[in-house]
């Protein structure tokens, strides 16, 4: 039976040809009185953490608590980009580890996360910017990561529909291409990790909101929820957007402000844009979904908010970027737009690891780069929880790095949350 409950061509054929129905992909678990580990937050990061805790570290009395349904937060609100073109030592290796996990994820989870390694091109609009990309590409290649520097003619062959006109405000000078970058299906990632974790015995408890974190002295011992008190040996917080509120429950102030990032999707059109493209003159990135919609996003709104509703002025700026880059976009209509609440940190990098309280672990501050980090975050946070010591790949992302003047400002934007 276990064999047949795996997803495969055989199980598909069996259900197509017989009356057999698909069973639930994961149980609707009732909370138990106590667990070894509680993960607060049923997004990609939380579920991946639970999966690797159970699968790699043999800790199976694990609960994932989600206040709504799983994947209802930022996991369902991003633009699904996956890449590893980071230049600061530490980030480069961490995100490459994540991309390698992505590459095997569908097999590992027995769930098609629809990874599409269509390649990402970051554009340069002048020689200075081109030099920066060349440097980044060299760093990537020295770390064994694929990167190709392209001049204007090569970009033109790859993407003939960009604006190459003489009157163009930001002429295209060249770009850096990472062939292994791409997109993945965000819901499938959440569901795949949930199903795989559930099979290893993890309880996924939806509609379970944490109202208080229980302490005994300097140790965290569990949580109080709307479905009762649940005790835990160790507790992890993976609640992007609301990290400050959870941390405040134990008296912690974080270097985090909650800001909005909007994303947009147009009406579906025939296959047009084969790659992910990032504009170099503004923060703007675009890809085409499998359905045909152009999916794009830009910069954060610029002031802190929990509304999950973006400002129209920013929508206009982003639309202007789209048309400046791809003039043909002007004929498309936007079908939907939405906003996610980002944990913005002063240096634009997250922090993962032990919190200042015993048995509490923090995973927060992902800004707008959390989706691509999902597998590696789960991998490293699970290791950190299991061993009560940070995984080597995340040691540079400690909570106290800013106190020690070791900010990790990947884009050199200055230590302000609203500038990142």
């Amino acid at each position, binding site marked *: 039976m276990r064999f047949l409950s795996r997803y495969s061509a055989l199980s598909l054929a069996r259900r197509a040809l017989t009356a057999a129905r698909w069973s639930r992909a994961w149980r609707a678990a009732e909370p138990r009185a106590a667990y070894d580990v509680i993960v607060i937050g049923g997004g990609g990061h939380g579920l991946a953490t639970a999966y690797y805790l159970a699968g790699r570290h043999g800790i199976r009395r694990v609960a994932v608590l989600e206040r709504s349904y799983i994947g209802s937060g930022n996991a369902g609100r991003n633009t699904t980009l996956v890449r590893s073109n980071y230049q600061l030592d530490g980030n480069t290796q961490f995100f490459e580890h994540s991309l390698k996990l992505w590459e095997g994820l569908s097999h590992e989870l027995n769930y098609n996360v629809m990874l599409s390694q269509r390649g990402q091109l970051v554009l340069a609009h002048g020689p200075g910017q081109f030099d920066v990309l060349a440097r980044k590409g060299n760093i990537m290649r020295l770390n064994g990561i694929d990167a190709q520097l392209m001049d204007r003619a090569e970009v033109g062959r790859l993407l003939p529909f960009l604006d190459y006109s003489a009157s163009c405000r930001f002429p295209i000078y060249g770009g850096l291409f990472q062939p292994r970058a791409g997109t993945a299906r965000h819901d499938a990632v959440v569901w795949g990790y949930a199903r795989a974790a559930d099979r290893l015995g993890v309880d996924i408890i939806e509609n379970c909101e944490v109202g208080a974190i229980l302490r005994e002295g300097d140790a965290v011992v569990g949580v109080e929820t709307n479905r009762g008190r649940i005790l835990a040996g160790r507790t992890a917080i993976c609640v992007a957007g609301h990290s*400050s509120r959870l941390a405040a429950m134990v008296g912690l102030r974080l270097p*985090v*402000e909650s800001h909005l990032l909007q994303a947009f999707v147009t009406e579906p059109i025939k296959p047009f844009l084969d790659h992910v493209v990032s504009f170099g003159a503004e923060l703007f990135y675009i890809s085409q979904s499998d359905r045909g919609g152009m999916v794009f996003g830009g910069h954060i709104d610029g*002031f802190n908010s*929990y509304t999950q509703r973006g400002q129209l002025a920013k929508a206009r700026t982003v639309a202007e970027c789209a048309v400046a880059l791809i003039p043909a976009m002007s004929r498309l209509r936007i079908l939907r737009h939405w906003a996610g609440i980002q944990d913005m940190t*002063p240096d634009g990098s997250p922090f993962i690891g032990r919190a200042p309280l015993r048995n509490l672990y923090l995973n927060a501050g992902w800004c707008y780069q959390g989706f691509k980090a999902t597998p590696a975050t789960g991998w490293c946070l699970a290791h950190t929880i299991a061993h009560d010591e940070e995984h080597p790949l995340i040691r540079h992302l400690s909570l106290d790095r800013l106190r020690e003047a070791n900010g990790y400002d990947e884009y050199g934007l200055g230590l302000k949350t609203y500038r990142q």
Partner: protein
Amino acid sequence: MLRITCPHCGERDYTEYRYGGDATKTRPAHGSGDRDAWYAYVFEFDNPLGAHREYWQHVQGCRQWIVLERDTATNAVGRSWLARDGEPR
């Protein structure tokens, strides 16, 4: 569109302003060597869900810094005043 009232120029779109962050923080004394106080001032945020008091500069108007009361759960704005004058009584 978020609309912010400038004491000099009246109610304007937020795009005329530049955001300046949490206005409730107290800057440590000049020359202070208290690293914890500087860390809290520069890097930590209350980041509340609800009432928030923040700086905005009216860069496309009178260029004055103002303090605005805003609810971060709804973006509803409350009072605003010139930062240099302090909260009106």
